[in-house]
């Protein structure tokens, strides 16, 4: 049995179809990403998984439970960090932790959790005095305080500065390493690429691709681009003859080689054999950004 199973989920608000037809499964211990542009139906999907919304059609099982009928059991075992959900301005960090601990029969150790989240010295701080990153970490702490088996994290790093984002990512990895299965909703490519074992790309309420980040990139072509400046004159024939190379271009004094597979090795080996030194060698890989554009036809938002 998979940890989470979603089959043919459909949800509309009035005349607006938020989720048209979404299916996926999440295995135990995975970080599963749900990636897509704003309004694609990501949040509605996970809200149905978390039992916050009732789907119009389709089936959901989380740890074998039906979010509609086993709400109480589900809430004990699924921790949720919601997008744009705040705490009372004057509530202190330590009080929030103590309060949320009282909701669960066997809560996590509050001190340990604060330690892990780097909030130990903020225990006495009011919620409103925390930085964006600290608020986000506290929100994660509250999602984890009931020792959940599954954590749903929605738009975790939106609005955080790069440093805080990296710290949050490390935290998510640590949480997964502690045995929690994670569903991560994001519209950031780099976040999905860095964290997720598998990613469902959702667009206009449908899953348009479901694969590992590397798999998605490969699907979008998986091309690599190598740029360098040859120290001596270079006969392009040498490179175009290689099976890995699809195209060789010149741009000023630079040579641009486009290819697939192990093209970097093939090109550098050939250059070495002909004693051609490559200056300023750079390699550009297709990113999840490119894959996203190929799969959805949209530019990703930043």
């Amino acid at each position, binding site marked *: 049995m998979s940890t989470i199973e979603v089959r043919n989920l459909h949800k509309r608000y009035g005349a607006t179809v938020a989720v048209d037809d979404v299916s996926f499964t999440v295995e135990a211990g995975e970080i599963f990403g749900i990636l897509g542009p704003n309004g694609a139906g990501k949040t509605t999907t996970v809200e149905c998984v*978390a039992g*916050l919304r009732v789907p119009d059609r389709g089936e959901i099982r989380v740890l074998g439970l039906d979010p509609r009928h086993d709400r*109480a059991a589900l*809430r*004990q075992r*699924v*921790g*949720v960090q*919601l997008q*744009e*959900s*705040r*705490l*009372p301005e*004057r*509530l202190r960090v330590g*009080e929030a932790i*103590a*309060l*949320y601990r*009282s*909701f*669960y029969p066997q809560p996590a150790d509050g001190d340990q959790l604060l330690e892990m989240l780097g909030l130990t010295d903020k225990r006495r701080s009011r919620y409103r005095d925390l930085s964006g990153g600290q608020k986000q970490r506290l929100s994660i702490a*509250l*999602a984890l305080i*009931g020792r959940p088996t599954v954590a749903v994290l929605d738009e975790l790093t939106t609005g955080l500065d790069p440093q805080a984002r990296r710290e949050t990512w490390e935290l998510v990895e640590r949480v997964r390493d502690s045995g929690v299965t994670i569903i991560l909703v994001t519209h950031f490519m780099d976040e999905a690429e860095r964290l997720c074992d598998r990613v469902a790309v959702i667009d206009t309420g449908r899953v348009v691709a479901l694969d590992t980040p590397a798999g998605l990139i490969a699907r979008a072509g998986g091309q690599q681009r190598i740029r360098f400046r040859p120290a001596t004159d270079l006969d392009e024939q040498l490179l175009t003859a290689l099976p890995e190379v699809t195209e060789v271009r010149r741009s000023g004094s630079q040579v641009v080689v486009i290819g697939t597979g192990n093209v970097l090795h093939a090109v550098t080996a050939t250059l070495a054999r002909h004693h051609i030194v490559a200056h300023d060698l750079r390699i550009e890989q297709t990113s999840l950004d490119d894959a996203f554009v190929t799969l959805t036809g949209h530019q990703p938002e930043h």
Partner: protein
Amino acid sequence: MASFVRLTLTEARLFLREPMSVVLGVVFPAGLLLMLGAIPILRTPAEQFDGQRFVDLFAPSALVLGIGVVALQHIPNVIAGYREQGILRRLSTTPVHPGKLLLAQLLVALAAVVVSAGLLISAAWLVLDVPPPQHLLGFTVAWLVGFGAVLAIGTLIAAVAPSQRTATGVSTLVYLVAMFAGGVFLPRFLMPKPLAQLGEITPPGVQALLDAWGGRAPALLPLGIMAVIAVAAAAMAAKLFRWE
């Protein structure tokens, strides 16, 4: 149960950190009466006050002020804010139903007005020689029914208001009406009779408080009307409450 106790204590703590609510709702009613009582003419029996003292007549209005601040300013603002900031929603992801947070809020509001009334009654008694409510049963019932009615109205406003701003706007309007009818702005004996009569049935029902304070049993019909208002508003609030 432990979670509900913790929730209530946390909300009580948060209430104490709201200077506006604590000062205006709990401390100010007693303070206002004492300040007015510092003026000699207002604490001596006078003909234009029906042979009574101004402070005797105004004490119930000061009580109404505290009830109004808590039930019609604090409660709608906090509850609508909790919804707008996603605090209720966040709670609905935990094993604790967000309804318990609302219940905790209402308990805190009750505690706040009890303290407010206690301060006012003792200050009036000890400093200004205003005897404590003479018809104790009538006073307790009138106070509970009156507070229940305004609290239910405040909660109803919070229940249906689309935003915290709207909740604050609407509840302030209702607050002003309730305070006017309660004789907070203009003593009721200075009002023309029809306006003064507003204070009989407009929650929280200052006339019933005044009667019971002075030792007369409050009239039952106005109390009944306010009880109906309380039940109807509470039922509507429960039915219409928007959790998000």
